[in-house]
């Protein structure tokens, strides 16, 4: 009972949280700054590609059904400038992912945080508009 009430309260909190967002241009047309997700699963594919690196996470629900999430992160060049390589995330890695869900398409996310099973936190960026090499003028 307490848990369900908590879900409801969280839902109301959510409704209020999107107001007045100043969102990144392409972000706000694709993702909902108020619709967050948090899930765990195994990395099933990594696409080290432009304009965005993507990794795919297989999430297994309680009934054993597998849903694959398509996770968008930055460009390869921006990630490389932040110390990533194409081998940072590997197929089979168990990850806990937080982010914002897509506005329309199901099971797509814009990622804010990836934590691996061995406790590595893969993001530690400062808040800049999406500048690969620094704050744009």
């Amino acid at each position, binding site marked *: 009972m307490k848990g369900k009430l908590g879900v409801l309260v969280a839902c109301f909190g959510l409704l209020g949280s999107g107001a007045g967002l100043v*969102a990144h241009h392409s972000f706000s047309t694709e993702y909902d700054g108020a619709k*967050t997700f948090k899930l765990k699963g195994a990395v099933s594919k990594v696409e080290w*590609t*432009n304009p965005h690196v993507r990794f795919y996470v297989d999430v297994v629900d309680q009934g054993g059904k597998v849903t694959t999430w398509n996770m968008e992160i930055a460009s390869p*060049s921006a990630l490389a400038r932040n110390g990533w390589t194409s081998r940072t995330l590997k197929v089979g890695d168990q990850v806990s992912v937080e982010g914002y869900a897509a506005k329309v398409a199901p099971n797509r996310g814009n990622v804010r945080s990836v934590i691996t099973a061995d406790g590595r936190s893969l993001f530690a960026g400062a808040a800049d508009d999406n500048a690969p090499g620094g704050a*744009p003028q």
Partner: protein
Amino acid sequence: MRKLLIVAALVAVTAPLVAQQGGRGRGNQPPLGPVGALGQEVASRVPPPTGPAPRLPDGTIDLNGVWNGGGPVNSIAQGLPKGETLPLLPKSKEIMADRATRETDDPHLWCMPMGVPRSTPYPFRFVQNYTHKAPTHMFIVHEGNIHSFRQIFMDGRKHPAELDPTWFGHSIGWFDNKDTLVIDTVGFNDKFWFDRQGTPHTEQLHTIERWTRVNEGTLRNEVTIDDPGAFSRPFTVTFNARLAAPGDEIMEYICQENNQYGIAGGHKNPFGN
């Protein structure tokens, strides 16, 4: 109470994987912090050097280096002197009002070029070609968007009388008093947007860029925009580029490779591919 339980159960059923976080964000930020694909944010770096700008052996300003910034992002009007506004013709205001309703049509989101003077936030560098006698071309190598180059003729030629419109136009350039690289460009198409606001231009666009390395780490770009088809008078915007951290180089950015823009938000590609 029963109703409450039903609503709560509905929420739980409709979002089994999406554990909503609830809580409000800080200030204007959404609950998980700044938006945008994470990792585009670059951890703080050493500030760019502020020593005197280097010069080539003949005294000409040395533009070497990888540069970030130097152009508009959100609005080209941000480069105007304080208090000024863009001298938009009524027709241009109408175009902007229309584009505000379809911001997802911004060409660069679909891997089309950003035109001139928009290249931020992608790094770029100048590459000069010359004979044993004199410079022949200057190229601006852009990491994005898209991974491309501009060609500037430095051999003293003039613009052709008639040009077919292109994304980067026809550019001629020269050094002004060895301190400033001047690039004069005509022959643009009218397809690219100056910024996220959809500030428009026409094929009559004529840009004059003045690139000055004001110190070792800062490159100033003063751009005069003259387009009688879109603005009531010429105006000048100024943007600064910052020298990239030592060791940083232009990297590959093939936007067309795996562009899934539009799927998450349900938007159609206005270019139809």
